[in-house]
């Protein structure tokens, strides 16, 4: 038995969970998939007075389409993201990103909401929802429901703007237009390791085969997911050529303010980020081309 003592609650309804969090205050922690929290408990780096487990709240792992959005419950597991037919059909970027997370024994438990609320700088899903311009729906017992853009949600390494009483309950993803190419690529030393740098990309082509909009977000290169709007603008209207891709790599390398850490020097990380961005955009364009009517 390693974790320090806590009171464990497993509410059977969302309202009950919200009321508990309101009552228990800052000493309570939400338990989702537990793949980041339980290691911290085991090492006693986290010592919450109470855990509120969301695993028995019905409906939080649902995936449904609502008009032009795919709505994903916060307790959707990574493995579910990889395999769900609605996700694969409408937002395959999420399925591809989820496939890069750790190992299968982690993906069976880890959750979308848990990954976003943990906000690890190297994590895949925060970058993916940033590129997808998803909306994060946050509820609490006492205040109004908030709907946040990724940039309003991620506040720093392992930090979000969630209050102690708030729960991220669902992620609303605008379904990209038909014909949109996608890609998630990352560089790790070993399969399943944290990414040294990763890139999520979306791209569309117009009737002439020129780029009609691209999106790019990186993980592993800053405190929060890095959306690169300036680089996206370079691509707008450009022909999807080798020289365009070359320029992306150079621009990303210059745009990234990476730090040296135990894993990698800042210089190498900028290099890797540039290559990941280039590969993600190249793959997204390839898929956009395949999706065009012949």
């Amino acid at each position, binding site marked *: 038995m390693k974790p320090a003592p*806590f009171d*464990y609650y497993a509410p059977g309804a969302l309202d009950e969970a919200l009321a508990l969090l309101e009552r228990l205050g800052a000493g309570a922690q939400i338990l989702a998939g537990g793949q980041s929290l339980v290691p911290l408990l085991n090492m006693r780096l986290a010592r919450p007075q109470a855990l509120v*487990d969301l695993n028995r709240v019905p409906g939080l792992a649902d995936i449904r389409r609502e008009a032009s959005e795919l709505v994903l419950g916060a307790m959707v597991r990574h493995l579910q993201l990889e395999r769900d037919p609605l996700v694969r059909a409408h937002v395959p970027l999420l399925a591809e990103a989820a496939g890069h997370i750790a190992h299968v*024994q982690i993906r069976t438990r880890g959750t979308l909401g848990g990954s976003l609320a943990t906000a690890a700088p190297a994590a895949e899903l925060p970058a993916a929802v940033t590129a997808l311009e998803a909306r994060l729906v946050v509820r609490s017992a006492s205040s109004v429901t908030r709907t946040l853009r990724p940039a309003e949600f991620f506040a720093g390494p392992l930090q979000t703007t969630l209050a102690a009483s708030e729960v991220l309950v669902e992620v609303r993803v605008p379904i990209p237009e038909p014909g949109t190419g996608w890609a998630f690529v990352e560089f790790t030393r070993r399969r399943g390791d944290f990414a040294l740098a990763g890139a999520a990309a979306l791209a569309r082509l117009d009737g002439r085969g020129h780029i009609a909009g691209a999106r790019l977000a990186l993980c592993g290169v800053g405190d929060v997911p890095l959306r690169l709007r300036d680089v996206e603008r370079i691509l707008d209207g450009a022909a999807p050529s080798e020289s365009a891709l070359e320029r992306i790599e150079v621009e990303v390398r210059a745009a990234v303010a990476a730090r040296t850490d135990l894993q990698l020097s800042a210089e190498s990380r900028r290099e890797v980020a540039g290559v990941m961005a280039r590969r993600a955009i190249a793959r997204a364009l390839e898929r956009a081309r395949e999706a065009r009517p012949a």
Partner: protein
Amino acid sequence: MGSRHRIRLVVNGAAVEREVEGRFLLADFLRSDLELTGTHVGCEHGVCGACTVLVDGAPARSCLMLAVQADGARIETVESLARGDELHPLQQAFWESHALQCGFCTPGMLMTLVYVLRERPGLDDEQEIREALAGNLCRCTGYQNVVDAVRLAARRMREVAETDR
């Protein structure tokens, strides 16, 4: 002192009912309370995979789950594999291929592979096998013999399945 909870679950086909403290890990519950010491505890923070068990058929780190979270679940551990003296095809293949030395990582490898071969019967591709094993660390054998064992077991299990059909 944290909260205590009464849990009911099915472990290796047998119904179990116990009272546990909220903070008690599933791995420790299996080993200490149920005396199923085949599930090994290595790193205790989700990296090594030695404690992998199946929870409702899906592989999970039992060091990253609380016992209380397994209330109502169906758990399979390495003890569920052999039928008396008859080893599971994966165990038999591990033995014949010399896929273990100290054996500490073996229970976690086996439970991961039980799941993988249920999902992908007949798995033979080396790269796929290595990726499937990426979440289980071994510090003795260097994995090559494990890959050989998986191929051998997958082939035999498929042959048996085809004979039975």
